[in-house]
């Protein structure tokens, strides 16, 4: 264990650098590759305002927002997953477990099905934002509710947090089921596809909004690396080591809700990343959160950008949902790491 830790520390910076390079390469590939073949020099020209109108529309309106949303989504989901796994000391925790994704989905589905009644009263310019705003508030509402439930006498019980999350997920699922029942077939098709997630469905304004919220929330999580290390000793030990356990839990919970709510609102619920990216990072670089957190974020970004490249190049001109690709790429990779690491570490 100690050897692993030392090894992890020694390898950390080159490994992080490598991951960073991988993400940069994938982001560049995301700008350069797509069903429309644009040679790299033309992509660069289009980026700096030199291309034909069609080329600059493809690069600026389609590929760039997509790549940025991918970066924000990957980082937010993976970092939130890593932080929650740390706080809850539960390797199966992901943003879905404590109901964030369920709340966001409920907000979105309610907008798709019932939004017609509200949309008429809104000015036309605001209507496209109804769904992301509802998804965001759905997520925020659920997480405040779950935290309020779990808080008793100034202490937040981790077990109650998880159980309340499970219950809230069930309630959100039932409410979504009711919405599905009253929806007409167009709405039904819309919400089926929304729940599969997509990076391509967001325009610039939405990407900006989601990106800004994610960027605001993620440093909060990154700064809690030491807290998360202490949490691994158990809450009592962490408290005696001088950690303000309650404050830390609250900060992590809120930052998670903001980050995950924002990207889910823009990209739909994209599963698997929040669960698997932190495990991948942990298997590769060890459990120290100062390294684990940035590594998870980079891993999440790399996974989602790779998945997005796959779906847009798989069967052009059509495009399968991204959720298929994240699981198809992440699953086998995860299994490989798991089997490879089994000799050295009994429990990752």
């Amino acid at each position, binding site marked *: 264990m100690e050897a692993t830790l030392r090894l992890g520390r020694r390898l950390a910076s080159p490994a992080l650098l490598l991951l960073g390079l991988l993400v940069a390469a994938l982001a560049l590939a995301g700008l350069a590759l797509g*069903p429309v073949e644009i040679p790299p020099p033309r992509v660069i020209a289009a980026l700096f305002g030199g291309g034909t109108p069609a080329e600059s*529309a493809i690069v600026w309106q389609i590929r760039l927002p997509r790549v940025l949303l991918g970066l924000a989504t990957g980082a937010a989901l993976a970092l939130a997953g890593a932080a929650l796994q740390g706080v809850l000391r539960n390797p199966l925790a992901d943003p879905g477990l404590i109901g964030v994704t369920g709340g966001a989905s409920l907000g979105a589905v309610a907008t798709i099905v019932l939004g*017609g009644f509200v949309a008429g009263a809104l000015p036309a310019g605001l209507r496209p934002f109804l769904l992301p705003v509802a998804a965001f508030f759905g997520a925020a509402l659920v997480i405040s509710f779950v935290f309020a439930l779990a808080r008793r006498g100034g202490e937040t019980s981790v077990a109650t947090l998880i159980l309340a999350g499970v219950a809230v997920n069930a309630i959100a699922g039932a409410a979504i089921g009711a919405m599905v029942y009253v929806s*007409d*077939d*167009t709405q039904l098709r819309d919400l089926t*596809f929304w729940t599969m997630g997509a990076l*391509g469905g967001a325009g610039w304004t939405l990407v900006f909004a989601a990106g800004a919220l994610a960027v605001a929330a993620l440093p909060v999580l990154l700064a809690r690396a030491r807290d998360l290390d202490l949490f691994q000793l158990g809450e009592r030990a962490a408290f005696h080591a001088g950690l303000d356990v309650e404050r830390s839990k609250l900060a992590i919970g809120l930052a998670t809700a903001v980050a995950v709510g924002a990207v889910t609102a823009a990209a739909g619920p994209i599963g698997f990343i929040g669960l698997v990216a932190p495990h991948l990072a942990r298997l590769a670089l060890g459990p120290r959160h100062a390294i684990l957190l940035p590594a998870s974020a980079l891993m999440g970004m790399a996974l989602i950008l790779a998945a997005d490249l796959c779906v847009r190049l798989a069967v052009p001109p*059509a495009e399968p949902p991204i959720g298929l690709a994240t699981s198809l790429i992440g699953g086998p990779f995860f299994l490989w790491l798991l089997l490879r690491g089994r000799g050295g570490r009994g429990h990752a």
Partner: protein
Amino acid sequence: MNRRSFNTLAALAMAAGLVAADGNTGAWAEDKAPGRIVVAGGDLTEIVFALGAGDSVIGVDQTSNFPPEAAEREQIGYVRRLSPEGVLSLTPDLVIAAHDAGPDIALEQLEAAGVAIARAPETDAAAAIPEKIRFVGQAIDRADAAEALAARFEADFASVKDKVATIGSSPRVLFILGIRNGAPMIGGTGTTADNMITLAGGVNAGAGVEGYKPMSREAIIAAAPDAILVMSQHADRIGGLDVILDLPEVALTPAGQARRGIAMEGMLLLGFGPRTPDAIAELARALHAENAVAAGL
């Protein structure tokens, strides 16, 4: 309330379609007919081919399966989940999009990349099909051919309706869209299936629900349909009409006892394209048997 907002939406969609069409024809007036067309909507594809512009069609969506050569074109996927860059990779001059094509952002991005978009009006009844034909004609600069096709459609449609009106029988028909989790999804009021059943001289036995909804077993028995109508694609997928007629709730109805199941190709039955009069006649023949023959169908 629901109905009203629905109508408003329909009106908006139509207005959008007309505006788009006007803008486009203006641009092409000095140009020529678009040479590379992508169509999102099976009914629109049928119309484009019927107007003789099939050779210009380079990409179609999943619902475009008629005429058979349409299905050989590049496949752009599901009509409500278009990939803007995928469509752009076909370098179209024009995208003819169904009223419900989307997502909106994809169409906006296509327009930003300089592709003309013609958004079709919504067709909520068979009687509105000529309008759609004329719309397509305008969009692809074949207004004369479209006028002729629309006139032929109106004549055929009127003739089929007249013949159906002389049939005395009016069997109860239950349209089953699919069987999911055990409960069959029924075509209720306001659906295309409802419209087609009525046009073919039947009574929709699923009129107790609105839209496509699952119907409980007892409700199906209580609805007492004389015939079951399904899409042939669906029947093939689950292993034939017999599987549906053997469902306990269906077997107990008059339709199940008389083994009266009708399978029709989905786009023919529900597409609201130029073949709709043929579809009505085919359905009427299946529903009324010798009465339909006597009526000249």
